[in-house]
């Protein structure tokens, strides 16, 4: 019987320069679409963020082990983002969470998989699943309100909240990181459409306000 041999498949050379992000071709268009001032709004893509999807029942042994490995608690209800050790955890569903971090994705995924090992649940590297758009500026809420069914008024949608919703019919995770700052996480294949939709929604703020 032939003996099985494990082949080392890990790439040894750095191939990061060969990667291109889902909205890389729009970088110049985004820059042109940005406006400054009192009605300003700016859009850019933040490529290659590490994202790890967790599926685990809340308050289970597996969840506690993941929390220990993450260095932060898992959020316990919708809208909540927990953060610690350079990682943010977004609530997606009662048993589904998204970890966002700047670490090397393979290392983080492996560490979390080892923590969950033997317990029901899953840890999957989803870094290529979504890309990140950053929408900043005084008019950012007005831009989003053109295509988001949520009430984005600050009395309802507070800073630090992240939810699953739609923008321009595209399913996204929307995270309000500051008073006028939003992070939008569309799936990679929707990045082109959503990027162009946002540019279109931003266009009116280039012109001076008319009464």
């Amino acid at each position: 019987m032939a003996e099985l041999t494990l082949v080392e498949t890990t790439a040894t050379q750095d191939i990061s320069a060969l990667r291109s992000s889902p909205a890389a071709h729009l970088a110049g268009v985004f820059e042109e679409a940005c406006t400054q001032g009192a009605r300003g709004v700016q859009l850019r893509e933040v490529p290659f963020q590490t994202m790890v999807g967790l599926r685990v029942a809340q308050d289970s042994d597996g969840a506690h082990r993941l929390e220990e490995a993450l260095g932060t608690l898992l959020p316990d209800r919708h809208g909540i983002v927990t953060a610690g050790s350079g990682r943010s955890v977004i609530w997606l569903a009662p048993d589904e969470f998204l970890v966002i971090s700047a670490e090397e994705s393979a290392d983080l995924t492996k560490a979390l998989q080892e923590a969950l090992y033997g317990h029901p649940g899953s840890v999957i590297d989803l870094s290529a699943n979504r890309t990140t758009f950053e929408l900043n500026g005084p008019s950012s809420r007005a831009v989003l309100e053109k295509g988001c069914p949520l009430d984005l008024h600050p009395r309802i949608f507070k800073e630090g909240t992240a939810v699953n919703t739609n923008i321009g019919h595209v399913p996204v995770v929307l995270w309000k990181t500051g008073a006028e700052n939003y992070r939008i996480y569309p799936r990679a294949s929707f990045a082109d459409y959503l990027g162009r939709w946002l540019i279109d929604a931003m266009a009116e703020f280039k012109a001076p306000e008319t009464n």
Partner: protein
Amino acid sequence: MIQIQCPNCGPRDETEFHYGGQAHVAYPENPDALSDEEWARYLFYRENTKGQFAERWSHSGGCRKWFNAIRDTVTYRFSAVYPAGSPRPDNAPAQPDSNDPIVGGTK
């Protein structure tokens, strides 16, 4: 726009939800024993209630979880939302007098 109370995410617009048809349609205990007609009745025949109707909904644009709801098919008003798999609540709360949907944000 109707707002639906997702048990996990709170009130959200109707467009974020997916309709799943009549709730409490039990899978036959022994499907092999059914005649074609009985099988077809299980698959395709549903109530066409005028008034309070128990139905399944999925929050496909949010937490992607299924739940059951009781909706008035005339007024579209939701009177109860309860977990999938639990029995239909006996006395769903009476409908409010106003025309506002029973759940809602402030938009």
